């Protein structure tokens, strides 16, 4: 199907099912139960899962395949967001032209930056991309937002005002929409104690995520992808094999820049606002974390990593002391206070600490990320099934 082999087709179908059924999967706990705060099935967060999934999939095409570690990918995301919001300001709230321009502008931008940065490899490449991204951030934050030429609206962030031209708007809706269907439209399905929310914006993002995943799958299995992997392994040999690695790395860079632009455009499409902080180096670092945590160079890894980090950011950070108190309230007073004070640094504002620890554990014990962890568990289970656990040594990888 779709020019994929059997294994890839299965993988693709699993991804489609997971994405389309996300409102159910992310919402496992009944609304009134104490665990409801661990539900992630609300539109805002699910949109973010999909958008950052796209961002990480694109980043993985560059980092996972060629091994070039870019520390400036957030710049392309930010540029995409600005382009999209400008389309809203000038044309109308229809998301299609906005997303189209976001991808196009990000492509041009990444072509220019990639052309310069890819003259170097390794740490120098990373630093160059970081420098360019910070330059873009500074430009967006201050340089390009003076009264005579206001492209980014500086600190406030670019947004749509009532007196903007919006020449194509006519009688169209006053919020982002796709030919009249507003992104914020949500249908709630009540089943027993559960309330599942189906949001149009999320399904638009999900469609793009599926498309993004499909394209990345095809790239991974193409001769182009094979040569990108060869670049990661041994560039000297590749050059002496008659291949010029520069255009290949540049193509990978631009493709991943376009993915970032798409993610940025979608972000603006869900919420028509673009701020400079989207381009900051912390945002670039985040996508690196997502990719490595999930498994760089794997197909599924970036999506898992993105989901994992966004889940932590939004769920763990909401657990405050009163929530903790209620968890440990079954214990005697002194003991519950003790446990609360122990857990306290790891949740709420301290969610970064938990994430950091998890990241350390994953990188140390599972260099292949969560995907490798999953594969290890899977192969161990299968071996146990076959030989009743007798041959468990066979699964330990030879190092």
């Amino acid at each position, binding site marked *: 199907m779709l*020019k*994929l*082999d059997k294994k890839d087709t299965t993988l693709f179908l699993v991804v489609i099912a997971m994405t389309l059924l996300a409102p159910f999967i992310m919402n496992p706990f009944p609304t009134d139960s104490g665990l409801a705060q661990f539900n992630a099935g609300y539109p805002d967060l699910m949109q973010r899962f999909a958008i950052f999934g796209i961002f990480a999939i694109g980043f993985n095409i560059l980092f996972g395949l060629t091994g070039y570690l870019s520390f400036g990918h957030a710049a392309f995301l930010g540029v995409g967001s600005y382009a999209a919001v400008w389309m809203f300001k000038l044309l109308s709230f229809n998301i299609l032209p906005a997303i189209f321009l976001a991808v196009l502008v990000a492509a041009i931008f990444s072509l220019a930056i990639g052309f310069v940065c890819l003259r170097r490899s390794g740490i120098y490449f990373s630093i160059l991309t970081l420098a360019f991204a910070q330059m873009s951030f500074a430009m967006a934050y201050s340089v390009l937002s003076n009264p005579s030429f206001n492209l980014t609206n500086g600190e406030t962030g670019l947004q749509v005002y009532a007196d903007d031209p919006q020449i194509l708007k006519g009688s169209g809706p006053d919020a982002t929409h796709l030919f009249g269907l507003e992104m914020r439209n949500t249908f709630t399905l009540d089943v027993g104690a559960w309330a599942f929310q189906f949001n149009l914006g999320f399904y638009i993002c999900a469609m793009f995520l599926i498309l993004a995943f499909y394209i990345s799958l*095809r*790239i991974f*299995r*193409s*001769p*182009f*992808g*094979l*040569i990108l*992997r*060869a670049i*990661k*392994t*041994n560039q*000297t*040999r*590749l*050059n*002496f*094999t*008659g*291949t*010029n690695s520069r*255009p*290949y790395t540049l*193509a990978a860079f631009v*493709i991943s820049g376009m993915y970032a632009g798409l993610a940025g455009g979608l972000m603006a499409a869900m919420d028509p606002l673009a701020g400079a902080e989207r381009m900051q180096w912390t945002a670039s670092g985040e996508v690196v974390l997502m990719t490595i945590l999930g498994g760089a160079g794997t197909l599924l890894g970036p999506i898992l990593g993105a989901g994992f980090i966004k889940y932590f950011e939004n769920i763990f950070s909401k657990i405050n002391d009163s929530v903790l108190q209620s968890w440990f309230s079954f214990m005697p007073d002194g003991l519950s206070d003790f446990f609360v004070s122990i857990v306290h640094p790891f949740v709420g504002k301290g969610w970064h600490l938990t994430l950091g620890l998890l990241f350390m554990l994953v990188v140390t014990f599972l260099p292949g990320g969560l995907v490798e962890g999953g594969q290890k568990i899977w192969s161990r289970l299968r071996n146990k099934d076959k030989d009743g656990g007798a041959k468990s040594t066979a699964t330990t990888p*030879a190092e």
Partner: protein
Amino acid sequence: MGILEIKDVNKRFGGLQALSNVNLSVKEGTIHAIIGPNGAGKSTLLNCLIGKLIPDTGTVTFEGQSVLGRKPHEINQMGISRVFQTPEIFTDLTVFENVMIPCLAKRDGAFQLNAFKPVLGETDIIEKAEQMLIDLKMIDKRHEIASSMSRGDKRRLEMAMCLAQDPKLLLLDEPTAGMARADTNNTIELLKEIQEKRGLTMAIIEHDMHVVFSLAERITVLAQGTPIVEDAPENIKGNKKVQEAYLGGAHE
């Protein structure tokens, strides 16, 4: 006229004259060895051949075209393949993928954005790579990851990668350096076999005499940046100048 012509090449690093007036001609279909003691300028000469260094004066031509100042991939596109001192292979990829890449590069040139064709649909490339692995008796290892193989197998794989491109000239830079005797002998056998089957032109830079005398049809001896003798192996063995170059230091 040889396929590879080196004319009046000079190269100086600061005060050291690394190559002085090197003239050399590699004839088509022969195995030509370039030998010499350490510091004789073998590596400098090789680096001039592959475009890494540009000589101060002189020309290096391959089939009448200058190779000087060209990038590695351009030199390869001209028909020159190179075998490195330590096998340079794609260690993270499987043996089969390793051989597919040179086939792809041969067909597609320096760059081709075919991001949406599945690799598995490239039947011509797959057939060619399979044939190459059968020729070099590696077909049973096709799914192995290249880094897991022995040094001798890595060398064999590297040869397969080079041969998959049907090069006109194969450059070998100390192909047996640091190898155990058994691996060395295997490599010699492999090279002989290739030469017999394909009549390939090879230029070998080497200082292991055992390798040189079992392979080469023509030998050039370099000493202090100058070729002192060029002759058939049987004449080189008895040559006085060569003995001096290798052992002479002790008598001075």
